């Protein structure tokens, strides 16, 4: 029993993290139909910024990372994605691969390819016990952040003017513009949110692995993309849920696969995803009805 709860807590942590990654990708996809594979490099750059600001008081360092990630996201949109806005999905996809490649190699050529291990505050690796169950502070922080961000985003999208405009733009960008919504502003807002989410994930990943590498964004962005597909691409709720499910499946396979198959865990994860998409190609929250 204790062991099961222990796994459950680990699963919740990974699921929360995957949900945040998926949300960061979905918020941009929803509004401009772009799967931003360079989202992982925003996460990666955030981690390198963290290395620089590590000496600052924690709140200031966190703030700096979040702002840096938002900035990178917005700059990316202005420089790389705006010129191809409205192009075919494949053009935008190739552009995002190019940005991803450029940023990763930019970091490799300037900072080097060696993994770096920052000195993090000790509390992140400490844990406490509830009965026989051991819980890391980082697990609590991750879960709490996922809940706070989910509630915060829900309020933002349903209660604020900008949130409403973004929802309208995600549903029908042309009509939103015909209503007077400034396309540049809603798209920039989507990238700001996406960048902030990437910043949070960046902090969580470094806190968890104590490792900063130029490639650290690649695996998360793949997970985020798959989660978004499971969720049905156009729905933020779906994306978050997709990330959550993916995190759970990953931990479940890690725990219950026979030991000699565990190295192939990710292959099983993707097999699960493919099986899911065969049964439900539109994802959990795919287009419920054709728009009239």
């Amino acid at each position: 029993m204790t062991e099961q709860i222990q796994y459950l807590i680990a699963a919740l942590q990974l699921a929360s993290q995957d949900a945040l990654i998926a949300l960061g990708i979905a918020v941009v996809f929803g509004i401009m139909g772009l799967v931003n594979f360079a989202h992982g490099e925003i996460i990666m750059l955030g981690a390198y910024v963290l290395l620089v600001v590590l000496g600052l008081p924690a709140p200031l360092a966190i703030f700096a990372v979040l702002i840096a990630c938002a900035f990178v996201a917005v700059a990316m949109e202005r420089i790389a994605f705006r010129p191809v806005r409205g192009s075919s999905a494949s053009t935008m996809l190739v552009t995002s691969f190019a940005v991803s490649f450029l940023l990763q190699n930019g970091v490799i050529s300037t900072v080097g390819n060696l993994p770096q291990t920052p000195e993090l505050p000790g509390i992140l690796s400490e844990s406490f016990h509830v009965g026989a169950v051991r819980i890391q502070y980082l697990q609590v922080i991750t879960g709490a952040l996922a809940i706070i961000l989910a509630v915060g985003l829900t309020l933002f999208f349903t209660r604020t003017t900008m949130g409403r405009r973004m929802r309208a733009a995600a549903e029908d960008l042309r009509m939103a513009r015909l209503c007077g919504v400034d396309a540049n502003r809603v798209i920039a807002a989507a990238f700001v949110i996406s960048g902030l989410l990437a910043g949070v994930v960046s902090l969580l990943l470094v806190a968890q692995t104590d490792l900063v590498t130029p490639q650290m964004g690649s695996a998360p962005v793949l997970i985020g993309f798959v989660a978004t597909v499971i969720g049905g691409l156009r729905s933020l709720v779906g994306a978050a849920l997709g990330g959550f499910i993916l995190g759970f499946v990953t931990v479940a396979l890690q725990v219950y696969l026979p030991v000699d198959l565990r190295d192939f865990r990710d292959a099983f994860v993707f097999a699960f995803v493919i099986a899911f998409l065969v049964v439900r190609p539109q994802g959990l929250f795919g287009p419920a009805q054709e728009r009239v």
Partner: protein
Amino acid sequence: MLVLDQVETRYGRSIALHGISLHVDQGEFVAVIGPNGAGKSTMMLSIAGVLKPAAGSITFDGESLIGRAPERIVRDGIALVPEGRHIFATMSVHDNLLMGATAGRYSKGELGAEIERVLELFPALRQRTSASAGKLSGGEQQQLAIARALLSRPRVLLLDEPSLGLAPRVVDAVFDVLEKLSAEGITILLVEQNAAMAVEAADRTYVLRNGRIELHGKRDELVNMDSFESVYMGFAEGKAQS
């Protein structure tokens, strides 16, 4: 007020509008009728800034609209009710109306009263402001699309086939509203395949076919014109109600 001069709009290589010219004066109700594929929607989207003409000019109060973004044009006072309505189906009726108000430059407290005023024209919507817009009937969605456009406080209202897919009784209700709006002084440019009703409602009508204006006249002139009869009969079989 709104003047199109030799407007030519293309989709890639194919030309949809071959240099059309027309004008709508302050307070006028003007209709453009034409068969499917004539270029009516292309014309509306060109005015609203969604499509950019390759040649010719579109001016509003003497200022060129060409190259202006759609969000800017609606703020300048031209609102489009597009073909197919394009209501935000996942949002509530009320949120759709708020979206319409985006370009309306409201001061605090003013918006609620304006929504009330617009809803007086559409009693069916008033009961259902918290309903999801996707759940409305076709007629109600069309009314919502018009109400949404009105909340931008336009000086010119562009309507692209508002009768499309609606039952005759509902079409009548929509046209009643248009005539009411026209009487209130809003300038209207209406595009229709439903020629009989459009000609009847409008002060002046243009006939558009294959991307060219073929005919043009005031209501009384057109109704008595032989050539109009033939053009109109050419595409309106079964649609004419008289």
